[in-house]
């Protein structure tokens, strides 16, 4: 049923309900009044009473009736109106509500459409993003792979560095520490963070292997940094810990260049264990050598007494054999002497007792001693001196120098050329500066010589068998002899040059040589000019 009709119908009902009862009751009342008054009139007429009062009452009643019912009707009508208005308003609201709802529905639909649109857009965007994401993921995947690889490398190197038993210290081009590994921390007893940013030379106390504090120029890190052509310096040093314990170490400092940046990498290890082993070995050699001497002496003494025919005559052959025995014994004795020397040098039980000697006369006296043997072999030895220093007095250990020089001169005599005219040995004493010396000695010997300004150089030159180039690097090795040397002198020990080199180094100098196979050799004994501290 159409809305408006329904509304009208309802309004009609309400009016009807409000007003109809009043009409009914009004009609009834009016009827009552009429009836009443009609009766009255009749009564009065019958009674012959005056009708005035009745008529007055009748009019009064009518008036009252009109007022009352008029009022009631009005009231009800107003009520009906009120109700109607309320209903109208209600209906209006309902209608408005319906309209609103319809509007809202419409809006809703619009929104939904919009949402669908937007959702669609979003989906498209999401798809785009997903595609982009995939692309990024791919790149990220690659990056991740190479990052993982790098990380792996880093871990690998880190693990290697960590687990290297040797201490590792990395420094920049100023010698400032940038990194330590764990072994270094443990060996030094200092945490990494305390050392990073400090200079190595200032923060870690080091002495040379003999326990003498390093002079500034001797520090391996500094030497590597200031040198143009020394890529690495290595050697034995002593580490002084914070608690004043001293640990012997072997340190290598190497210069590292990488795309313009320079740094130094120091690797070091505790060699106390090695030193103990060395010492034990040395002591063993020493003990064994001593023990060997006793039976050898017995053999020697008895053989000599036999040869002297002290206990009976001998035939020629017997004398010959005994003579060979004695020679062999002498060789054994010499070998033991050399072994003992070596073991003493190795274990550094060598005490250097310096005194002032004049080198020229010293050399001449040695030559005099060897003169007999030299003459026997037809060699001539010539001693010259061309040092500009006013005096050729050296502050040196005579005994040790004697051992060195005798050894070298004997070598020159032993390995001299076969032709008589060439059996000349030239001995020359000169002076040299520190820089000149560094030019003629190999770099690894730099840290072995005393850092003084001037040196004596004793040249011992022969024209003999020489040393083949392939053997040059081994010539100072223990027991090493070149093939031609063995042929020339079958019973050498191979210890002579080893001992000579160590003794010169023990005196703060060094031993070097030049040689050409079959042409001859020149050996250079380099000794530092040291002041006698005892004087003034």
């Amino acid at each position, binding site marked *: 049923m159409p809305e408006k009709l329904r509304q009208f119908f309802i309004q009609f009902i309400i009016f009807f309900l409000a007003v109809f009862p009043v009409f009914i009751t009004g009609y009834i009342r009016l009827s009552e009044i009429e009836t009443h008054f009609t009766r009255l009139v009749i009564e009065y007429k019958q009674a012959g009473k005056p009708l005035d009062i009745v008529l007055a009452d009748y009019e009064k009643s009518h008036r009252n009736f009109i007022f009352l019912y008029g009022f009631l009707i009005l009231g009800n009508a107003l009520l009906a109106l009120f109700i109607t208005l309320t209903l109208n308003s209600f209906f209006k609201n309902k209608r408005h509500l319906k309209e609103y709802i319809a509007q809202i529905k419409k809006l809703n639909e619009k929104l939904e459409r919009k949402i669908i649109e937007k959702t669609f857009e979003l989906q498209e965007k999401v798809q785009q993003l997903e595609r982009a994401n995939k692309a990024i993921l791919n790149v990220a995947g690659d990056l991740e792979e190479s990052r993982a690889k790098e990380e792996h490398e880093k871990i690998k190197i880190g693990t290697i560095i960590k687990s290297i038993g040797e201490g590792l210290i990395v420094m920049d081009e100023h010698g400032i520490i940038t990194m330590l590994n764990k072994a270094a921390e443990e060996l030094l007893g200092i945490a990494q963070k305390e050392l990073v940013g400090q200079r190595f030379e200032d923060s870690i106390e080091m002495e040379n292997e003999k326990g003498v504090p390093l002079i500034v120029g001797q520090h391996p890190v500094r030497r590597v940094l200031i040198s143009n052509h020394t890529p690495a310096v290595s050697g034995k040093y002593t580490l002084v810990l914070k608690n004043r314990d001293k640990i012997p170490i072997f340190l290598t400092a190497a210069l590292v260049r990488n795309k313009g940046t320079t740094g130094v990498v120091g690797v070091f290890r505790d060699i106390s264990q090695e030193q103990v082993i060395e010492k034990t070995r040395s002591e063993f050699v020493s003990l064994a050598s001593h023990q060997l001497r006793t039976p050898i002496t017995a053999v020697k003494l008895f053989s*000599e007494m036999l040869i002297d025919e002290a206990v009976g005559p001998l035939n020629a052959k017997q004398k010959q054999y005994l003579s060979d025995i004695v020679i062999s014994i002498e060789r054994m004795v010499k070998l033991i002497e050399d072994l003992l020397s070596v073991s003493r040098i190795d274990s550094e039980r060598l005490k250097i007792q310096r005194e002032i000697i004049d080198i020229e006369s010293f050399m001449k006296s040695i030559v005099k001693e060897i003169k007999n043997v030299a003459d026997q072999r037809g060699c001539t030895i010539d001693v010259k001196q061309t040092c500009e220093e006013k005096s050729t007095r050296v502050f040196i250990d005579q005994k040790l120098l004697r051992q060195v020089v005798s050894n070298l001169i004997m070598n020159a005599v032993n390995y001299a050329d076969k032709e008589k005219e060439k059996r000349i040995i030239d001995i020359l004493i000169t002076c040299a500066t520190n820089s000149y010396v560094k030019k003629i000695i190999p770099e690894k010997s730099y840290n072995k010589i005393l850092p003084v300004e001037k040196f004596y150089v004793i040249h011992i030159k022969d024209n003999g068998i020489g040393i083949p180039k392939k053997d040059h690097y081994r010539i100072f090795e223990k027991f090493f002899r070149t093939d031609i040397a063995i042929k020339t002198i079958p019973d050498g020990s191979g210890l002579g040059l080893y001992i000579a080199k160590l003794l010169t180094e023990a005196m703060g100098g060094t031993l070097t040589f030049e040689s050409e196979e079959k042409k001859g050799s020149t050996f250079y004994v380099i000794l530092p000019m040291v002041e006698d501290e005892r004087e003034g």
Partner: protein
Amino acid sequence: MLIEDDKFLCRAYNDGLDRAGYEVVIAYDGGEAVKKIRDEKPDLIILDLILPIKNGFDILEEIKQDDDLKKIPVVILSNHGQDADIQRGKELGALDYLVKANFSMKEVVDRLQDVFARSAKKG
């Protein structure tokens, strides 16, 4: 008096010195050494350093502290040749120090004669 623990060396030196005209008495270890010196009062003591019971240096010290014995010249004949040992021996009063392995019998005898001559001069 020869104080030496190696039996072979003892025989060698004994024979050699005997042939050179000396009378030789031998002590084989540090324990009997001082007693034998007291008993025999030798003209010269040839002393080894490495000995059982008591070593050569200790024996030398003991002898030099004994008024009766300190005048006897002592020559050390040992196979230890280190400078430190030689110095110590001479400080303790040995008149000479010979390294056994380096000396033949003849040379040993010559050196002993030198020592005799020197100590005779001292009177």
